[in-house]
């Protein structure tokens, strides 16, 4: 009897605790949430890991959710820092923005694909579904399997803006829900092509030159390779407490060095 009662009481406590306010994120020992773009997420996780190793008193919690969710989370305070991997739209302005880095978008193919480069129009044509076979664009092999990100993703948004222009990505495109997932598909299928964050390109896939410019940091910084976008940290107000300490760490030499070593272009430039 008492045991049943105890269980009921415990359940009631859980539910009432649920109704209470969550812990204050800025207080010492509080958890700070950073949420948004899944393109930034792996880098943010790495930065948080490094930051907390040096400052065990802080507790940072990194969440995905996508750029739009990150912007909303920053606006309504659901997260202390929102992450966006695209520029804010006019109606989203008004947040405090810190560009922690910028990132190239690489058009990638399988390592064994002999193709080295394409023009932006050709890339757009592939994703619009104009070309059926690799031969039609001077490559080798059969049918092109093109992999896009899902609707709402920041990477897709940036790709549409910079490559597709007013054309639409074909509905026949294979769709994956993260940059990592796109890369894994490309790494396994020799006939596939996709686009991901330049920082996530590894040696199993090849980043194509676009409009004659190699997808490298140097070319992005020189303004030759045009497919790049900012990584933004957003907050409702001027960051304070844990948020400020974390952003200061990222913008400091150690943070920027880490981002740079991961293939991103440091935010100061």
């Amino acid at each position, binding site marked *: 009897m008492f045991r049943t009662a105890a269980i009921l009481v415990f359940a009631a406590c859980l539910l009432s605790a649920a109704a209470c306010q969550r*812990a204050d994120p800025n207080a010492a020992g509080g958890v700070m949430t950073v949420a948004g773009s899944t393109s930034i997420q792996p880098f943010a996780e790495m930065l948080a890991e490094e930051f907390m190793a040096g400052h065990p008193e802080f507790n940072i919690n990194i969440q995905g959710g996508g750029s739009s969710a990150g912007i909303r989370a920053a606006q309504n305070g659901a997260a202390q820092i929102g992450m966006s991997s695209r520029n804010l739209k006019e109606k989203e302005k008004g947040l405090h923005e810190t560009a922690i880095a910028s990132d190239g978008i690489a058009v990638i193919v399988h390592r064994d694909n002999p193709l080295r480069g394409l023009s932006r129009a050709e890339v757009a044509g592939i994703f619009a579904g104009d070309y059926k076979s690799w031969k039609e664009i001077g490559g080798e092999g059969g049918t092109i399997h093109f992999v896009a990100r899902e609707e709402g993703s920041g990477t897709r948004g940036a790709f549409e803006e910079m490559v597709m222009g007013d054309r639409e990505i074909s509905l026949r495109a294979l769709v994956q829900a993260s940059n990592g997932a796109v890369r894994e598909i490309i790494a396994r299928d020799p006939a596939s092509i996709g686009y991901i964050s330049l920082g996530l390109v590894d040696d199993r896939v090849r980043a194509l030159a676009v409009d004659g410019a190699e997808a490298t940091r140097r070319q992005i910084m020189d303004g030759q390779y045009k497919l790049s976008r900012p990584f933004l940290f957003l907050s409702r107000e001027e960051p304070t407490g844990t948020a400020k300490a974390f952003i200061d760490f990222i913008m400091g030499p150690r943070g920027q060095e880490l981002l740079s070593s991961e293939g991103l272009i440091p935010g100061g430039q």
Partner: protein
Amino acid sequence: MIRLDPALSQKLVRWVLVSLTALTVSILVFIITYVLLKGLPVLGWEFLSTGAVDAGRGGGIFPFIVSTVFITVVALAIATPLGVGTAIYLTEYTRETAATRVVRFAAECLAGIPSIILGLFGFITFVLFLKLGWSILSGGLTLAIMVLPTIIRTSEEAIIAVPQNRRDVSTSLGGTRWQTVTRVVLPGALPGIVTGIMLSVGRCIGETAAVIFTAGSALGTPTSIFASGRTLAVHFYILATETDAFGMAYGTAAALIIAILTINTLAYWMMHRIMRKYS
């Protein structure tokens, strides 16, 4: 139509059935052995006791074990009293009426709702509407809904299986209905109820769609029920789709499968014992 000799068709059918059964069983056996063979070498103490390094490409799965346990405990702490209470009411306190049929039908429907719908519900209700955020609590509440029908059904069966004469004895000795329930019915039905709870634990551990949108995917060890946590299944999903860290993925899968199979085997073993006791 060709008429086959009955003896020949008997042989033929038998042969077809044997080979299809063999195929089915070997597919299922293959899945388990394959994952265990690939995963067991990774599955050491180091792997189980350390956190993830480099977003899961290295290190271990300790934080995810903690999250999984937390979420499962929260889910069952909520679902068990609700489920067992419902079962007690349906069996001991009321006759079969239109109202009880509605309750049963509702529980049946609840059992049929796909976990992604529960995830959608948990996301909009717990994460956004109640402002619990991505947290162990949101995930636990969502899973509680998922396993509630299982607990109701198994508890009901267990309670019904308690022999009527035991209740009669308790009542004739002057016991009230509640005393009969707590002192006679529940102790008798306990193994069956525990079986239901264990099967639910197995489902909580293996679930992905309902948790990924409610508990989130934070890499750290959760420090409270308001913190986000990545369960083993979610971690495995992320490793499997977003990385080429197959070793880590197989290790995590092996840990998942071993945990679930052990729990389910224990549950079946208990169920078997109960069935023998009453039949």
